[in-house]
């Protein structure tokens, strides 16, 4: 017998009600039950960070959170960053700084950076600080330099009065 639970949550502002098996990860629930396939799974053991989403504003590895734990929560995924088809400043900066190649890890880095930018507006945003942040996730294509530059540029642009 599957151990099913009825839950409700909001994803990118959209309300969802569903029944989900207790062992189903938040990542699988988002991807396969709700269709938010922008969240990617790179390791399923919490190291690579490709599945990073915001759970009530905090970045989490969606592979290490059960779907039922998101009951009543507000989840943000990569699909919620843009205003319609208009890329956010962070998304645009990723393109401008060649911060992505294959694009598989990109949603995780975007959500990681989105949380950082919301929380740390008073920082200097030195390369060292951003490099430490970016070290949370894995990218196999870019060598990270473009990702660091994109987040730094966005952080500084947002600080301008």
């Amino acid at each position, binding site marked *: 017998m599957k151990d099913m639970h009825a839950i409700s949550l909001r994803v990118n502002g959209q309300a969802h009600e569903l029944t989900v*098996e207790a062992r189903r990860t938040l990542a699988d629930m988002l991807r396969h039950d709700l269709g938010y396939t922008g969240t990617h799974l*790179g390791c399923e*053991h919490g*190291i690579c960070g490709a599945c990073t989403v915001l759970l009530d504003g905090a970045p989490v590895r969606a592979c290490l959170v059960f779907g039922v734990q998101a009951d009543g929560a507000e989840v943000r995924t990569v699909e919620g960053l843009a205003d319609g088809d208009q890329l956010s400043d962070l998304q645009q900066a990723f393109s401008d700084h060649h911060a992505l*190649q*294959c*694009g598989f890890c990109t949603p995780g880095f975007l959500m990681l950076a989105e949380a950082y930018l919301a929380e740390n507006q008073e920082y200097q945003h030195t390369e060292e600080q951003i490099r430490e942040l970016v070290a949370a*996730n894995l990218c196999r*294509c870019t060598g990270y*330099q473009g990702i660091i530059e994109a987040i730094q540029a966005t952080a500084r642009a947002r600080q301008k009065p």
Partner: protein
Amino acid sequence: MNATSATNATNGWIGAAVPRREDRRMLLGRGRFTGDLTRPGLLHAAFVRSPHAHALVGGIDGTAARQAPGVAGLFTAESLGHPCLLAMLERDEFVPTPMPILAGDRVRFVGEPVVLVIADDAYRAEDAAELVAVDWEPRPAVASIAAASAAGAPRLHDEAEGNRLVDLLMFDDDRLPEIFAAAHATVSATFESARVAALPLEGRACLAEWDDRDDQLVMHVSTQVPHQVRSGVAQALNLAERSIRVIAPDVGGGFGLKCVVGREEVAVAAAALRLRRPVRWIEDRQENLTASFHGHEQRYRVKAAFDGTGRILALDAEIDCDTGAYSAFPFTCAVEPLMAATELPGVYKVPAYRARGRAVATNKAPAAPYRGVSRPQIVLVMERLMEKAAAVLRLDPLQVRRANLISRDEFPYTGVNKITYDEGSYRESLDLAEGQVHARGWPAERARLRTAGQRAGIGYACFSERTAYGTPTMSQRRMRMTPGYDTALVRMDPTGEVIVTTGTCGHGQGHETTFAQIVADRLGVHPDQVKLRQGDTDLASYGWGTWGSRSVVVGGGAAGRAADIIAGQLKKIAASQLEASPADIELAGGLARVRGDDAAAIGIPELARLVHFQAHRLAEDLRYHLEARATFDPPGTFSNACHAAMVVIDPGTGAIRLHRYLVVEDCGVVINPVVVDGQVRGGVTQGAAAALLERVCFDSEGQPASATLMDYLAPTAAEMCAVDIVHLQTPSKFSETGAKGMGEGGTIGAPAAVLNAVNDALCDTGVRFDHIPVLPHEVSAALNGAP
């Protein structure tokens, strides 16, 4: 050769930093990867894999698994009829090793698939796989080149004596003994590189479904080589190639892992055919790290003779590659030893050469061509030899390199290895790198760090890389399936938009952008009006996918040639409308214009509309389709670079930190500097990590000891530093655009540069490392004088 700031586009769209067409959908979370696809009634696959490195399979009991909730099917080698993938090299020295799709009576590595379980839910498929009982009869395993080569070692394949799958004496100059006897100096050393995982962030994945209407098995596969997957599935399951369509949607990195065909892909295809239901398999990271393909585990026993001025006189190499349990399809296990033995001399003039290359079977996952394929190792060997010779002869190591580098006036240079090197900037890139290193103050910084009690070192690596191998070169390997050419189809629709189809298969390299730049220049349109369609076997009669730094040269070259044919058609039609000669028509800015007469012009969309909708108004030879097909099959072209690295070693912990990195690279004409810089930086990161971090580990029984990303250390941003890049441009005479391939160079040069930097940091000790990765405990032991 011109040193350029590559952002200055001087020749239309080629050379311009055009923003990548691929970015938008990825940034919006609208990429379409294989794991994102779903189907009504989708079934999920899980594999039962061997827990033993070597065992006989006594019996399989799937009764409990078949009765588990949600299970729709269970397959074994027997129930599938013992299909296999057979990679073939047509050489007497090659021992074929058919790779069963599911292992039958014998398993040869931990993780080898034995049973395929299909269920209505991925979790339940894994549950059921755990219920399968297999009666294993373990056998002694060999887990290293040394163990596999020892007298009396257990054989993986009965017909492979000494577990040698390939043993080729590629070159054998009989003057070698006398040259070595008379040489001023001789350097001997053993060099080793550890087994690594390609580690694309998206593992392997496939979704197979039968389509009654098209009478085809349609497979979405995360692959670099859709046509080779089609051929592999067709050969293994005895199907016509037409009856299979392989589509590579967005692919989350490959690095060589996905340029071979996985047995899991074939197994899932077989299950979908039997069940007539869509079946999806998503590899998990443990499977990826233990049971997919590895690369790069090699040993070089090398002897080199030098004269008193540092010139190399002779080179003798014994090369052993740990190929794992089977030859990968279609390249075979010969890809590493053949590449190494053929290309070892590299950028240096070696007058006499002997090289023997072997592939040795071990009870480990099979090897696939990993980014760079043997070039990271051969560059490491040659660059370490230059340093060692300089030390023995008390010469400047860069002067020793200069004494041996092929120089500008010697191109095209045919080496002792029978390879002809087209024009490059070998000497110039070294001179520029050395100048930049000094201009940027690295030596002074090294001195300051050393005074402050740190250990700091600077290392260089010079190399070239043969890219874009076509069949003229690939045929020398004698593969049953000989790759190299590619074909493009270019069409213009009635609105003047252009569709390019190719058999290459980009997966992060920006081909949708760079191919559009190449075609846009030839047709006088904007790159946004050129759409690349790729990664679908139904779009190209045959193609060889994306690997070996081939796509922009071979696929882009074919696209350029096909576009030229369309351009010729457009010019003739414009000439007929403007009452001019076709020779006087130029295509630019969306217009066909008469040269020197600004008023005489017609829009390219208007020409396209005429061809498609007003054919009757055109002369007979100008009517109908705007469509052209062309193939390109070059011999290959050498790009080159010089890398410089600076490392800092913590004297307490032995930890090695990459501190500064510089690349002077020459890939001929740069199509898009953004893409080139991205490839270089990503490549350097992988190469530096191979030197300092990455190592797939096994115990002596062949049990994997690096099955998670806690144990297999991929580089994060914290382990990397900024990579500065300087471009030189020596256009290739062997490519349509003057471009040379550049997808692997970063990975090729970095291990040698980093290892030389580590050894420079240890220069006051007696320790020299000749293997990768060099790990902190080894440095620590060396600094503490421990053995």
